[in-house]
């Protein structure tokens, strides 16, 4: 008998209610302790589920309503290693965030702790659920908690505007998901993913299925911040409190991708098999996201904003792996997503350290002021290498798998995009590190306020970053992981096996694990590409810091000519205006929809 899958949701929710209800009796230290204990418990429960599900999904029917004659009467959590893994990642990040906020966070009684626990419970529920409407409920729950957390710093108007745009755009995304659910329900009379998949399978997609797919896809892509649904993200993520940013950048965007993958494979893979045209449509969105995010990342001087756009860009990379619509691509994406989330979490904490010590997060104003922070410098540089996908970070193995899948699927050029994007995002961080910690390049080097003492480095502040980076390394070094991921995605992508497990209670077909992963194809090429990304990133960073040393050749000139107008246009488009975000959402919906409609006809 394994863990009851309801517990990692129920425990934090109950704890959150207790924290608020008994707030007059709970001091700051107790609140910190209770919330941290809750997050650790959730992490442990999710990790136990991860172990439990290695042999096949665990189906848990709330209220004991097991299906009758293939009809689901209740709501099920269908836990598989992918969902449980993502939930564990959320638990780890939440634990890190709560450790970080232990000493320094303005928590407003117990409200911060309660909101973080609700947020975590919602993420876990979203990852474990096997019911489309139940996913929507957890989507909204995590969103409501996220809106409040994003606007936490009410003294900062930028943060409030960011939260408003976040809430408005994501609410519209949520309604799109709900409309998609209504369409599917009108056709099938079902809400359980397995049952939905079963009743749609066997017939080619018609207009209702295509539009329902479009609505769900756009809704989840809004959460994931796929271009052009990403305009809300930067202000919301960058101006949120640091511990909240750890969760936002580490796992929340990825949840949109997860949901897309889950719903595609359980519900739509029958009527919409992964043919070339669907792949092309998705890859278009993926590549656009990766590149727009990468370029915007380089253009930032606000350190947290830089990370926010790195998130957008890496969502694009991950989506590229998923968009191949093959198990191997998905496997790479899953590995990449987890490792990348850990690295970004560590980087967010590092920026928190900079802010904590120097009271500033503007790259130019910080020039040379971080010279006395060698640990923070090391963390940022290591994080930048993690973003670049340098071995032995887990991002390397994820990307290697995605590159291999792309080549096998006939898209070898995706490797070029991967290299370019990794180079761009790591360049931005290396440039910032060079300027802040080594005093390189130009900058206005705003003098630090005199009366602010330099606080001591405290283990609760540095610890989370170190641990998260170590975890990202562990994902890259753990030898059996690739093999387990391959088994998990094999099951994840098997629509009929999933349906049989959920509705008939049979264990799916046995997927044999190749020990240690599939025959280790040569890692020489991926390693060379990773080295190339890192070197390119370093070169770009140095070029930006030392513009005078650039060779004055035609290439430099040509690059400038291409770069400057692109940058100007992109900057102008990212206005942070709510109306603009919503307009782009509709434009994206019309664009993707037209492509999908043409595809089916």
């Amino acid at each position, binding site marked *: 008998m394994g863990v009851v899958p309801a517990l990692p949701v129920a425990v934090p929710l109950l704890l959150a209610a207790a924290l608020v209800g008994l707030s007059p009796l709970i001091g700051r230290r107790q609140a910190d302790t209770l919330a941290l204990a809750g997050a650790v418990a959730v992490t442990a429960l999710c990790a136990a589920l991860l172990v439990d599900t290695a042999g096949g999904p665990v189906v848990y029917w709330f209220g004991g309503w097991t299906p009758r004659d293939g009809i689901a009467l209740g709501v099920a959590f269908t836990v598989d290693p992918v969902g449980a893994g993502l939930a564990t990642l959320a638990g780890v990040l939440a634990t890190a965030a709560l450790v970080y906020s232990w000493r320094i966070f303005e928590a407003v009684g117990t409200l911060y702790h309660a909101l973080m626990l609700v947020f975590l419970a919602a993420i876990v529920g979203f990852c474990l659920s096997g019911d489309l409407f139940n996913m929507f409920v957890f989507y909204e729950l995590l969103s409501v908690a996220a809106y409040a957390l994003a606007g936490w710093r009410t003294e900062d108007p930028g943060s*409030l505007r960011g939260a*408003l745009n976040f809430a408005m755009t994501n609410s519209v995304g949520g309604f799109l998901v709900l409309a998609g659910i209504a369409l599917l*329900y009108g056709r099938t009379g079902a809400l359980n993913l397995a049952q939905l998949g079963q009743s749609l399978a066997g017939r080619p997609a018609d207009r209702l299925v295509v539009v329902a797919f479009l609505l769900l896809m756009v809704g989840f892509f809004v959460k994931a911040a796929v271009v052009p649904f990403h305009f809300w993200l930067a202000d919301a993520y960058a101006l949120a409190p640091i511990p909240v940013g750890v969760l936002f950048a580490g796992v929340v965007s990825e949840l949109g991708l997860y949901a897309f993958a889950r719903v595609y494979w359980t519900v739509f893979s029958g009527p919409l098999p992964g043919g070339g045209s669907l792949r092309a449509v998705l890859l278009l969105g993926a590549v656009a996201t990766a590149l727009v995010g990468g370029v915007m990342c380089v253009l930032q001087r606000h350190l947290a904003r830089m990370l926010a756009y790195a998130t957008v860009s890496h969502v694009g990379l991950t989506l590229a792996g998923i968009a191949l619509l093959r198990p191997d691509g998905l496997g790479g994406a899953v590995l990449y997503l987890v490792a990348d989330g850990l690295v970004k979490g560590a980087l967010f904490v590092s920026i928190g350290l900079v802010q904590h010590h120097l009271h500033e997060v503007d790259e130019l104003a910080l020039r040379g002021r971080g010279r006395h922070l060698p640990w923070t410098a090391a963390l940022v540089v290591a994080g930048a290498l993690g973003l670049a996908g340098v071995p032995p970070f887990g991002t390397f193995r994820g990307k290697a798998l995605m590159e291999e899948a792309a080549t096998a699927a006939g898209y070898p050029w995706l490797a070029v995009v991967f290299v370019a994007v990794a180079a761009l995002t790591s360049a931005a961080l290396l440039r910032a590190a060079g300027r802040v910690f080594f005093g390189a390049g130009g900058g206005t080097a705003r003098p630090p306020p005199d009366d602010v003492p330099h606080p001591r480095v405290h283990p609760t502040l540095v610890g989370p970053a170190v641990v998260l980076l170590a975890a990202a390394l562990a994902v890259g070094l753990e030898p059996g992981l690739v093999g387990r991921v391959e088994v998990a995605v094999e099951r994840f992508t098997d629509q009929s096996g999933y349906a049989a497990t959920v509705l008939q209670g049979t264990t799916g077909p046995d997927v044999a694990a190749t020990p240690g992963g599939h025959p280790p194809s040569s890692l020489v090429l991926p390693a060379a590409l990773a080295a190339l990304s890192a070197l390119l990133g370093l070169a770009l960073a140095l070029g930006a810091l030392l513009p005078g040393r650039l060779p004055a050749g035609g290439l430099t000139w040509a690059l400038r000519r291409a770069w400057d107008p692109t940058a100007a246009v992109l900057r102008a488009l990212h206005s942070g205006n709510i109306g603009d975000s919503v307009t782009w959402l509709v434009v994206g919906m019309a664009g993707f929809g037209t492509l999908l409609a043409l595809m089916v006809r």
Partner: protein
Amino acid sequence: MSLLPYLVAAWLFLVGLYGIVTSRNLVHAITCLSVVQSSTYILLLAVGFERGGTAPIFLDVPVGTKAVDPVVGALTLTDIVVGATVSALLLALAVQVYKHHGTLDPERFRGEQD
């Protein structure tokens, strides 16, 4: 008639978005968002409606009487709570934004990006 509620839902969805996009006042935009949301209520209830069915409450009518789908009712109830709570959060954000900027017009926040 067999399409009318669906048409109404699609219309409300788009007209609400139009309101948000063209809004010059955040509170106005927030109310428009609730119009967008109302389209999902209509869509849900319309797909679960059965002509000639009673409400799925078997207090005065026996079980077995033709009734409309109870599930969409439950879903819409949740949806209504979601709508009201998101609106409350948005209104709170709008009030705070006003304290900083002295305006609710999103166009006038322009150039204030930091």
